[in-house]
């Protein structure tokens, strides 16, 4: 645990030291705001809630989270520091968790910067703050799932561009897995159970429920198990590279 925190601290310092943190935070806040006001018609809806704001988070994460995740392992491989890191007395699990926790905390920090949206809507009306809180939690969990996928993909390559594109595509398919775009591909030949299973993997379905204020155990379990699964796969990839 101590090592996880030490690695996370180093990673966080790197985010702020390289300017990545500021670029990401500014763009994230600007885009979430712009989407809510111009595309989500925040004012025109005339409702005191943040649905217009949260609704676009999956699409923003699709672009921004793989960008954060792509460097996690690809950069270590490229610069050779992975050899340094993995010959220090830390386990693979500690290294993976440390990096993941730092990136997740950092996205959480960017999410916190959108609190003025919450203040605005409270100033304008009387929103259901419980729903807003669950939406923040849901958004954070979804970011974590995107991040775990990105981290896992990043471990496969030393090329950050490849890591970005593959992770973004995979995330896109998961976001869309409840839609006809993905499901029609399977409907022709796959059994009904499989189609239903794929459709239940949809980020959107789970997230839509959450931002309506329904934070079900199955949605929580969905995001947390996705994170666990991809971080576990991440560990296997790192260990596999050691043996290859």
């Amino acid at each position, binding site marked *: 645990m101590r090592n996880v925190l030490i690695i996370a601290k180093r990673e966080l310092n790197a985010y702020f030291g390289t300017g990545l943190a500021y670029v990401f935070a500014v763009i994230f806040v600007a885009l979430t705001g712009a989407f809510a006001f111009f595309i989500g018609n925040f004012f025109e809806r005339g409702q005191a809630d943040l649905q217009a704001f949260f609704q676009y988070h999956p699409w923003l994460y699709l672009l921004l989270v793989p960008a954060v995740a792509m460097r996690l392992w690809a950069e270590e491989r490229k610069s050779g520091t992975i050899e340094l890191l993995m*010959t*220090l007395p*830390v386990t693979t699990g500690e290294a993976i968790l440390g990096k993941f926790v730092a990136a997740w905390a950092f996205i959480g920090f960017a999410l916190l910067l959108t609190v003025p949206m919450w203040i605005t809507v409270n100033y304008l009306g009387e929103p259901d703050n419980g729903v807003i809180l669950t939406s923040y939690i849901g958004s954070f969990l979804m970011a974590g799932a995107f991040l775990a996928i990105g981290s896992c993909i990043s471990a496969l390559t030393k090329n950050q561009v490849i890591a970005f594109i593959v992770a973004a595509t995979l995330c896109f398919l998961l976001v869309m897995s409840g839609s006809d775009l993905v499901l029609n591909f399977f409907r022709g030949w796959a059994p009904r159970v499989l189609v239903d299973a794929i459709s239940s993997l949809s980020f959107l379905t789970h997230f839509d429920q959450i931002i309506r204020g329904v934070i079900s155990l199955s949605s929580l379990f969905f995001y947390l198990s996705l994170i666990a699964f991809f971080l576990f796969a991440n560990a296997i990839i790192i260990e596999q590279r050691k043996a290859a």
Partner: protein
Amino acid sequence: MQVLVEADRLRKTFGHIVAVDEISLKVAKGEVLGFLGPNGAGKSTTMKMLTGFLEPDAGTARICGISVSERPKEAKALIGYLPEGAPAYGDMTAGAFLRFIAEIRGFDGSEKAKRVAAAVERTGLERVVEQPIETLSKGFKRRVGLAQAILHDPAVLIMDEPTDGLDPNQKHHVRSLIAEMAKDKAIIVSTHILEEVEAVCTRAVVIDRGRIVADGTAEELQRRMPYHNAVAIKVDAAHVDAVASALGSLSGVQQVERGAIQNGHAQLRAIPKGGSMIAPEVAAILSERSLPVAELYVERGRLDEVFRKITSEEGLRHHA
């Protein structure tokens, strides 16, 4: 003799290529082992297996008796490792980087500050502590890597080409650092610079195509040279025959080689039987017969010739 590093029939293949083929070696406390070999011989791969970065296909690496693959965390805690090219997090300052390493190595508070300060002082980094590593010169980067490796005063120090690309002053500094620390550690240094072996190593292992082809002190390796302890003599062309026959009459001399005559001087070389020391006899007979000599010296057999001989012989055998 306390064995701190032990490789037991380590083997590693990448696809069809056998990078390391059953390498076994032991390094004891107080030894500085020079790991020699042409590029691609398997030096780095062996070191990566010793430090737990790569998993061997077969065989075991042990550090102070602890198996690297079974108890990696404990084994890694005992090693200081400088990977090839001294990788470091470029965006960190040298000081921040060393503090990070100190924390991971389990030091806190004042102990951490003390360890970092000691490593900085030992490697002469005082001037650049507050600079981001990516802005440092190659020499300083290498020193940051060294500082990182020695920070926890490890029992085993493994360095992959620690002086590669450094200028002569920096090389000298690194070598004296190694010599300073040699007493109570087991040190492995890989290199393809032979002078380095003569300068710092107590023992040299030559590897080629993933196998150990020679193992011994620099002196022992030199003994494998045909010209080891040969006496080279430069004489006036007029005395060449007299000197040659004088040398030929000595019982310790196996053969006398004659070189071409240049600027009125000829080069002669007396090759001893079994590499024994014949210089005193040669000197005695020349003065006895009062033959004038312009130059006389004993050839040690140059290590890089030994190296070329060993690795190319192996190559020939390999292809035969």
